[in-house]
């Protein structure tokens, strides 16, 4: 088996890479938690891309039900067709639409399935998927068919911790918490996204960024994706290094809340004063 080590586009720290390996080897879903913007969602894409596997994304919303991932029986279409005498309406299989989980199961090649933000759905949602994820199969009563995975897909699940997941579900997963990257790793990550960024700008921006993250009273600390956006704007607008030292231009890109911007202003005033 091929192991995931990170890729050109995705910098994975060794802990994360080893968690992916453990999930691959033990054939268990990998549950990723961590601050928003630490690359939980993009990991699955990177793994699929790097290992050359087909990728299925099941994006969970508050109204999502477990059934949606398996299959949908399009009765309305069938009724509609029946009104016009379309051929083949007696074949129910024509009206079974597989969900992302169903498609990943029936993929010929081993697939990577991302169940994104599982905590958004109802509290019972993860429990409803236990059997399917354990056995990698499900039954369609309408047609009497069983959809079974040829090769177990690598399942990656992300959660922002909005809801506690049930214990029975957690125990079946390989758990990994993505730590917010330190300056060293962050530098590598930035290099991947903005390869030709000036060294000095990067250093100064990083210093400012980690200083902001360290402020106590922030409600929402800026994360990687916001830092990248900020660097893009700084470069685009040609902000001078002196400018960055005196004030923090475009801080609104880093901090989205008005209260947080006020916190930053206060902190800057104190810093300049001292």
């Amino acid at each position, binding site marked *: 088996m091929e192991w995931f080590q990170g890729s050109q586009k995705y910098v994975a720290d060794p*802990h994360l890479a*080893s*968690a992916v*390996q*453990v*999930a691959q*080897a*033990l054939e*268990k879903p990998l549950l990723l*938690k961590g601050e928003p913007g630490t690359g939980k969602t993009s990991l699955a894409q990177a793994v699929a891309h790097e290992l050359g596997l087909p990728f299925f994304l099941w994006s969970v919303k508050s109204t999502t039900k477990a059934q949606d991932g398996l299959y949908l029986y399009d*009765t*309305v279409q*069938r*009724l509609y067709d*029946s*009104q016009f005498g379309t051929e083949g309406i007696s074949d129910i299989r024509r009206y079974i639409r597989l969900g992302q989980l169903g498609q990943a199961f029936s993929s010929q090649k081993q697939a990577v399935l991302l169940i994104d933000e599982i905590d958004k759905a109802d509290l019972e949602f993860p429990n409803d998927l236990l059997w399917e994820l354990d056995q990698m199969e499900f039954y369609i009563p309408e047609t009497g068919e069983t959809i079974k995975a040829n090769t177990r897909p690598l399942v990656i699940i992300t959660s922002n*911790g*909005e*809801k*506690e997941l049930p*214990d029975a579900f*957690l*125990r*079946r*997963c*390989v*758990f*990994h*918490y993505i*730590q917010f990257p330190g300056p060293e790793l962050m530098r590598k990550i930035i290099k991947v996204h903005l390869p030709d960024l000036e060294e000095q700008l990067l250093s100064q921006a990083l210093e400012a960024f980690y200083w902001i993250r360290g402020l*106590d*009273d922030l*409600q929402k600390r800026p994360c990687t994706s916001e830092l990248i956006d900020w660097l893009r704007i700084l470069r685009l607008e040609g902000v001078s290094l002196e400018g960055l030292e005196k004030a923090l231009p475009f801080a609104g890109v880093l901090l989205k809340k008005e209260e947080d911007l006020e916190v930053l202003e206060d902190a800057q005033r104190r810093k300049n004063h001292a």
Partner: protein
Amino acid sequence: MLEGFLVYLRNRGFSISVEQWLTLMRGLEQGLHRASLTGFYQLCQSVLLTSETQMDPFRKAFQGYFSSLEEERQPSRELLDWLRNPERIEGRCDPLQLLENRDISPQQAQELFQERLKEQTSQHNGGSYWIGTQGMSPFGRDGNSLRGIQVAGAGEFQRGFQAIGREEYADFRQDRVLNLRQFQLAFRRLRQLSSQQETSWELDVEGTIRRTCDQGGLLKIVHAKPRKNTIKLLVFIDSGGSMDSHRGLCATLFQAVSRANHFQDLRIYYFHNCVYGHLYTTPACSLKRWVDTKKTLEALSPDYKVLFLGDATMDPTELLGSRYYAHMARGGSGGLEWLLYIRNRFKKSAWILPQAMTLPEGSYWRESYDIISNIFPMFSMTIEDLEKAFRFLMEPV
């Protein structure tokens, strides 16, 4: 041979299932621990833990269990070089020695290891006594001994648990005071879906379409019970005075409460020192913005869940009421009577302290705390305690 570790972890409150343990064993069989203690630690983390709140306690537990393996004396550079670049030899596994080493305790291994470190002066590969590679001694690298000390693993010398001796995850400990997200999470415990108790029905559009189509177009109406949170919450927040030092924390809790949009109704009032005849509607406790306590609360049904947020530390006279204050300024009653009134008016109430009480018994400022804790169950502002408080509020009366 690791069962002791499982029992040890379970005794320390890690609820690890047999299935998880077997998964760990499967991981070890497949070599996912990469023949190093750090790798083993990471594998355990991946397989046995289910939440970031467990990471720090787990690190400590792991260290506690395996710390006896940590080298006291650092092996020399030369020794490490032999271990990293051994001369290869084949087939050196002695079953008898294997059995002997199996019963070595971590303490014995440690003692023997220290002894050898003092004695050893040359390279040893495939032996059963010295620190070396591939052999049967309990020390060294790539050996066949079941137990012992890994000296230079996975290309880099790893000094036992030093590599994992970091405080990175301390933030997530359950007993730590909370941040906004954690508050929000805790508040989600206050949820009771109406479908569980309500008797009214509403039209289930999805269900109706489905059943109708199933019948080939013959209309079939389907009803379902609505799913809405029926929890009504009444919050009293102590503002100002001794609460100033907890302002940040209280603001966070307040945000979590006010942003939680899943309550059927949410009322927030403020008080200064204690609740009296008037409730303030803003944290500034301005006299212009107050409402009559009795009138306000009488309008609310008794099934509101009541949450007090305050340090419960006040001058006893504020609670028990001197004659002047009680009758002139505070609408006729002392604070205590008001608290009792609220307790009796509503079915469930709890008191949240920003900090666990630390004042010694019998001290002047503690008196009010002791009195109030007899009226309301007290909880401090940690995840664990907050969850307890909410569970208490959710319990049937």
